């Protein structure tokens, strides 16, 4: 049983192997960018929006409001980063219902890549907001003794993000495959429905946690409160 689409090499490009993870990621990228470009072309303020544009506006506005609730301000860079995380992960997770489509989020390489992106983005946002010294200073607060713990905490965030998403999606796909062999008529359908729900929730959790991390790194914290606000999930 193949647990990860990384092992499925489809073709090579410029001497590099292109596996199903990368290829399916391109498909998702094409779908997202193509649909967005198709709907948002020829936008005019004096023309009432159609239902597709309204759906996109509702989606984007929902993401913006969620980010605003967490960060307390409207930052377009956070929207680009966290919104793209959410849209990519949710699209990938929803496409698990397509037969034969190996979702990239079931690959640990993809989730590690996304976690690394968050791991890199958080200090970048923090440095952009507080300056490099201001950001590095947060690692020795409230005491320099906390420096190793803060560093461990920083890396453990990324690891937990990667493992959580990978585990949820991969396990859902594996369980659905196992149940398909045991009871092919009823349980796979139920598991796929649960998988859709789980996929959306995991996308939401991943994006929210990334936003929370970025918000903690960029927020100017009061002197009396130096503890980070994080959300732990099962």
């Amino acid at each position, binding site marked *: 049983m193949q647990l990860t689409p990384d092992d499925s090499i489809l073709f090579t490009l410029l001497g590099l192997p292109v596996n199903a993870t990368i290829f399916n990621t391109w498909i998702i990228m094409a779908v997202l960018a193509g649909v967005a470009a198709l709907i948002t072309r020829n*936008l005019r303020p004096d023309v009432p929006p159609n239902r597709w544009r309204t759906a996109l506006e509702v989606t984007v506005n929902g993401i913006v409001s969620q980010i605003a609730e967490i960060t307390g301000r409207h930052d377009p860079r956070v929207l680009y980063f966290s919104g793209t*995380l959410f849209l990519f992960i949710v699209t990938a997770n929803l496409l698990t219902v397509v037969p034969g489509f190996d979702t990239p989020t079931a690959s640990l390489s993809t989730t590690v*890549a996304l976690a690394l*992106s968050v791991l890199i983005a958080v200090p970048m946002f923090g440095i952009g907001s507080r300056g490099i010294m201001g950001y590095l200073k947060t690692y020795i607060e409230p005491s320099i003794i906390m420096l190793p713990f803060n560093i461990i905490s920083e890396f453990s965030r990324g690891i937990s993000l990667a493992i959580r998403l990978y585990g949820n999606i991969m396990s859902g796909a594996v369980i659905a495959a196992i149940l398909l062999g045991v009871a092919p008529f009823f349980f796979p359908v139920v598991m796929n429905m649960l998988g859709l729900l789980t996929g959306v929730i995991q996308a939401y959790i991943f994006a929210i946690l990334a936003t929370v991390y970025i918000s903690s790194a960029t927020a100017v914290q009061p002197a009396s409160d130096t503890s980070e606000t994080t959300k732990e999930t099962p």
Partner: protein
Amino acid sequence: MSIDWITVGAQIVNFLVLIWLLKKFLYRPILDGIDAREAEISERMGEAAAVRTSAEVKEAEYKAQIAELSASRAEMLENARRKADAERDALLAETRTRLEKEQAEREARRAEEARAFTEELHQNGAQALLDLTRKALADLADETLEQRIALHAAGQLKDMADNLRDAAGDSCDATVLTRDPLPEDVQDRLRDELAAILPDFRLRFDTDAGLSPGLNLRLGGAQVGWTTDSYLSGLDAVLEDRVGRPIRKGLTDAA
């Protein structure tokens, strides 16, 4: 469960590319469109507020005008009623004047018709009276009216000699005027009678178709007549008694 670091790197690149693509094709157009629409809505709300303010100002103006009109309504009605009364009075006066004028014209026309009728009646009556008199004289006395009048006048000249001489003054011409020529014997009789009382006068006979039947004697500036006019005036008096008003104006008694 293994990590393919080449795939990890490729996925990081893919994710960055996806961020750029969605920023270009999704976030920017949608957010810019929302901002533009909000700006347009805000602009329209501003225009609507301006229009509303203008409408409220207009409403206040119209309410003030309505109040002013209501206040002056009674005065306007009174003025209109007064004007209507004046116009009605003017029309009534004009109509009354026109009716009076028409009535006066009718009365004048009726009076003229009455005058013409009575004039015609007088003439016809006088003519009938004269015709009857002539016929009676011709049938019963074998004489004419003018001859009988001339003879009667000749008989009275002697009694009027002194008056005639005074009236003639320095003149020595006497003229006998009749409507129709007198017979020769009547002329001789008149010439003899006048020569007896006024021997120096030269008598001349003349006719005038406009005269009444009878005889007029002119002596210088004086004139004495024996005509039927006084009798015709008597006919007018009879007719006035019957009709109850003057028959004709300007009718003069016989001299």
